[in-house]
């Protein structure tokens, strides 16, 4: 219970820090985001300029502490300001359209990659002396060294352009809508396969390597030797004795890796023009839409923090040493 409380406190605190970084960043940087939109909309009345400043939360006449308080109040009410590139739409409305795509694509791809990577890692640690294991290990070390976006470009080139087996980009064909029901879902799955494959394959090596090294450490433990001496079946030793222990550090390493995987997935969306948060981030960068840019940063960070929290809780449920509170 104390562990749970500590993790919850940390989650709340970390979200608070993320909010604060998000508040400080634009104020630390040279240039004035509000001036960009003001320059874009020529010949504004001074009152209009003031209202834009207020909308973006950049009111230079108020003290920094008042600004900070207003900012926190606004966020707690779900008010993230107004988007520059989609002016006068609210940032939250723009972001809400992109979120489901990213959560769906990235969520499924990450889970698949974790499962396959872990299974592969267990297998190659178990048969560590074989040539096949070495080859698989080498292959994924190689794939892991490529930027995701380039791997995406290559897949698009060979499997969508050269051989038109898959669509070039987008999340579903323009001809179908939600009203089409099953056809719409099929189109979404079809469009998601290639970007999903990029994220899954690129991040697989990470999980594989982590579990492989843990597994090899565990296999050297005395209780494995005892299990072998007792004549237990190979599968029982591999899955129940070794893998179950080796998987714990993998789950707690999720924290680090997830942030990394998300970074790669965002750029993958850009390559596939997938209408998720990553592609929106790309557009926000190009159009200097700072309010949107920051809202995206905030959302991704909070998403990562919550996933970490879930991983911590999972560890608590799986590992009696933590559950029964050693510390």
């Amino acid at each position, binding site marked *: 219970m104390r562990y749970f409380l500590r993790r919850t406190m940390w989650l709340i605190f970390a979200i608070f820090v993320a909010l604060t970084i998000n508040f400080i960043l634009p104020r630390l*940087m*040279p240039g004035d985001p509000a001036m960009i939109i003001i320059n874009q909309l020529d010949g504004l009345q001074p009152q209009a300029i003031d209202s834009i400043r207020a909308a973006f939360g950049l009111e230079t006449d108020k003290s920094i502490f008042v600004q900070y308080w207003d900012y926190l109040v606004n966020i707690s009410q779900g008010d993230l300001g107004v988007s520059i590139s989609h002016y006068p739409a609210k940032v939250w409305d723009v972001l809400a359209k992109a979120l489901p795509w990213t959560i769906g694509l990235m969520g499924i791809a990450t889970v698949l990659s974790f499962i396959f990577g872990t299974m592969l890692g267990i297998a190659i640690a178990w048969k560590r002396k074989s040539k096949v294991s070495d080859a698989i290990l080498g292959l994924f070390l190689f794939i892991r*060294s490529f930027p995701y976006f380039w791997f995406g470009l290559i897949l698009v080139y060979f499997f969508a*352009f050269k051989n038109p087996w898959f669509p070039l980009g987008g999340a579903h064909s323009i001809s179908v809508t939600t009203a089409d029901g099953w056809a719409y879902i099929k189109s979404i799955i079809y469009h998601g396969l290639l970007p999903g494959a990029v994220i899954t394959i690129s991040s697989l090596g990470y999980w594989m390597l982590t579990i492989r090294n843990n597994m090899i450490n565990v296999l050297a433990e005395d209780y494995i030797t005892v299990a072998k001496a007792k004549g237990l079946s190979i599968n029982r030793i591999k899955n129940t004795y070794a893998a179950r222990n080796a998987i714990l550090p993998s789950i707690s390493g999720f924290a680090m890796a997830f*942030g990394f995987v998300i970074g790669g997935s965002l750029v993958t969306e850009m390559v596939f023009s997938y209408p998720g948060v990553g592609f929106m981030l790309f557009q926000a960068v190009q159009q200097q839409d700072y309010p949107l840019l920051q809202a995206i940063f905030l959302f991704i960070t909070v998403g990562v923090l919550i996933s970490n929290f879930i991983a911590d809780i999972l560890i608590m449920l799986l590992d009696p040493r933590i559950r029964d509170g050693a510390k």
Partner: protein
Amino acid sequence: MIKDMLKLFIENKKAMLGLIILSMFIIVAVFAPLIAPFEPKQREDAAGEFPLRSEPTSKHLLGTTHAGYDILSRLIYGTRLTLLVGMVTGIITTFVALALGLISGYFKGRVDDVISFVNSIFLVIPSLPLIIVVASYITIKGVLPIILVLSLTGWAWGARVIRSQVLSVSEREFVKVAEVLGENPFIIVFREILPNIISLVMATFFTSTLAAIIGEATLEFIGLGNVSAVTWGTMLYWAQNNAALLYNAWWWFLPPGLFIGLLGTSFALMNFAIDEISNPKIRKR
């Protein structure tokens, strides 16, 4: 101790392969003007202007870009900045991680609390979105901001592992003996502790350089770098923005990414070798 490490490192096949790949890139970078057929920003020679979007020919082995630059020459010259940014970022990141890890792990107490706290924050904040936000606010586009932004966000993991290793080494007898003998703490840190964590420091350098190379390419691909600089990342930026894919120009976007991957693999191999050497359990018996 360090000599033994180096000997094991050179005898390791993976390390050797990584070292050979890296040396080849360094040679290409140093002798770029001698190897490259043309200048990276050259559009014409005595025979007239270069063709635009040319396919590979005997004169332009990898074709030309939309602006008539020779792609092979850009690839060769691009090695310079790509390698420089990656290595410099790797060195700065490792240095910061090492300094913070040593201070926090050896001196403990209040200093450690503060450093560890900041460290935990930087660990959980996803770096690429942060890098993109910071880089998009910086109005000067160039190599230096990229190095600074990547270093600022890249040190956390290294500092964390170095700290825990320093904590365990500083409990060992030889450190305790030096302390009892009244040795200066800085001498203890540099003479007793540092040599014992050198493999971890090397691993940190390899991982952070690998991350820096990919991070650099990603930033430049998005257009947040200096797009007129010649690097592999900006080559991919121009290829993407001029629809190289739809022109079927694989010779334009394939080689830069392949080179990024190869360079990354060389660091990954060396990192893997260090793991094998310092953790005998992982080494094959």
